[in-house]
């Protein structure tokens, strides 16, 4: 069964995984693409079979720009997975992409979980992680069929208030 080892984890993406297989393959081609409903045109993440808003089962892959901002985050000091221990402290970020913000209702958006990393895929320094900061996608290749979309800081102006956990 197709799988990839990463930080001691066995990431399994069988041939019949119709949700994830193409997502990670597209990422390996260094393209961030989301499923878009061909009825109501709204995109969604994670990849799913039906449209969360109109329940249509017809969809197509649609490219997005890969830019966004940090919507929330955490800093892992005590790793749970053994393969992450050497990586601590590392940031897990909830990124809100630029497309489709506040649609179809005010508080919805295309959000994605990833690590905030430097361009050479080391954890970004904790001091630099804050809500509101701009980020762009970069792709961490794991094998010929699989890459993880990760995010790295840009020098663009922030979105709204920049906020960091005090202390």
């Amino acid at each position: 069964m197709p799988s990839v080892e990463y930080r001691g984890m066995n990431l399994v993406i069988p041939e019949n995984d119709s949700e994830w297989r193409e997502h990670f393959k597209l990422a390996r081609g260094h393209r961030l693409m989301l499923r878009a409903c061909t009825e109501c045109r709204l995109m969604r993440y994670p990849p799913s079979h039906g449209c969360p808003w109109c329940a249509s089962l017809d969809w197509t892959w649609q490219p997005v720009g890969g830019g966004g901002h940090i919507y929330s985050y955490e800093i892992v000091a005590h790793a749970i997975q053994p393969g992450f221990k050497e990586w601590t402290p590392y940031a897990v970020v909830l990124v809100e992409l630029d497309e489709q913000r506040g649609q179809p209702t005010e508080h919805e958006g295309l959000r994605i979980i990833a690590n905030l990393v430097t361009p050479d895929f080391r954890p970004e320094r904790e001091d630099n992680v804050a809500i509101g900061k701009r980020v762009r996608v970069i792709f961490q290749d794991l094998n010929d069929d699989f890459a993880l979309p990760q995010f790295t800081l840009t020098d663009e102006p922030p979105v709204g208030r920049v906020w960091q956990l005090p202390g």
Partner: protein
Amino acid sequence: MGSLKDKYCIVGVGETEYSRQSRRSTRAMAVEAIKRAMADAGLGGDGVDGMMSYQGGDSTPGNWVSADLGLRLNFYMDIMGGGSSTEALIGLAMGAIEAGMCQTVAIFRSMNGYSDFRIGGTGARAAQPVRGLDLAQVPFGMRSAGQSFAPTFMRHMYEYGTTSAQVAHVRAAHSKHASQNPKALLKERVTVDDVLGSRWIVKPLHLLDCCVETDNATSVIVTSAERARDLKKKPVYIMGVAGRVNKPRTDFHWAHGPISRVAGYHAKDIVFGQAGITPEDVDVTGSYDAFTFTTMLQLEEYGFCKKGEGGQYVSSGIIELGGRRPNNTSGSHLCEGYTHGMSMVIENVRQLRGQVDDYCPGGADGQHSYDYAKGKCRQVKNARITMNLGWAMPATGSALILHN
């Protein structure tokens, strides 16, 4: 369909000891907890004909456990579940009895949550292959409950100015309560500064913001009010129940904000509507404390204070014994032991009976000093209505309102 308010009761509660080294199977522990709950209710070998449990591939099914108790079941069901399953199964037990499938249901949860299948996600859980929806989070080092919930609290801090110190009061309060609970794992009282000075686990969570992994089994028994009146203990009546209510997009709840909103937003109208009461009428709360902030988020979402003011509410003294509306009077998951929610219902049942198992010499007979100093009483005076706020994750929760 007519209301089921006050037509069903919790008639028996029981648990094993809370430890970090049970040295026995989940089957052995489940049997002990149910046996104690049956004895509590005064139910004999033919008194229970239904059994339900919840687990996550870490426990023993009901039809094995029932054999050890000499029970022939007319109904059993074991579900995948964790936090907030207790309240949901109490509602489903009412449904099973109402449908005529059985008459009295024992609900249990049994787990070696420290010595075997660690609830914190290390060991066996961390070694599992990652597939399906887990691929959206786990490859990024977001696997444990704390890691999965922390961005919700971080965003709440951003939106409302909630602080680490405010939620640290939850730990301080629950540790006071645990110091009056002989069965609590952690009986030492801690201060807000102790919490803030403990090491970081996943920012914004310190070690003492997190609950204590535990080996234990717990059980509650549900039957009709009609049958309850013939049993040993004063019945505790079920006024309302909401089970595993969800926010939209539970596949990936981050997509549907505000992410600082939790499932209680949708559950509160169901449960308060059934019970016909408001938060003001509740004497004791049991807001799930997997972490300090989960208690805070749910109390504000169910309307015990205004949205965004949970930090002020939990740091005001209201939630402590002697306060206006104590929360988790056993010390609960942060201090007593982690049970996936059942212990919070057990504690509220005992509060309503006036028989919490504190250090008062006549406590079991309802004679309490109401002296909330360390090592003394934890019975709330004249508790009439209690409410449990069960948490599975930010987007899923349950609730239960009881009265005596």
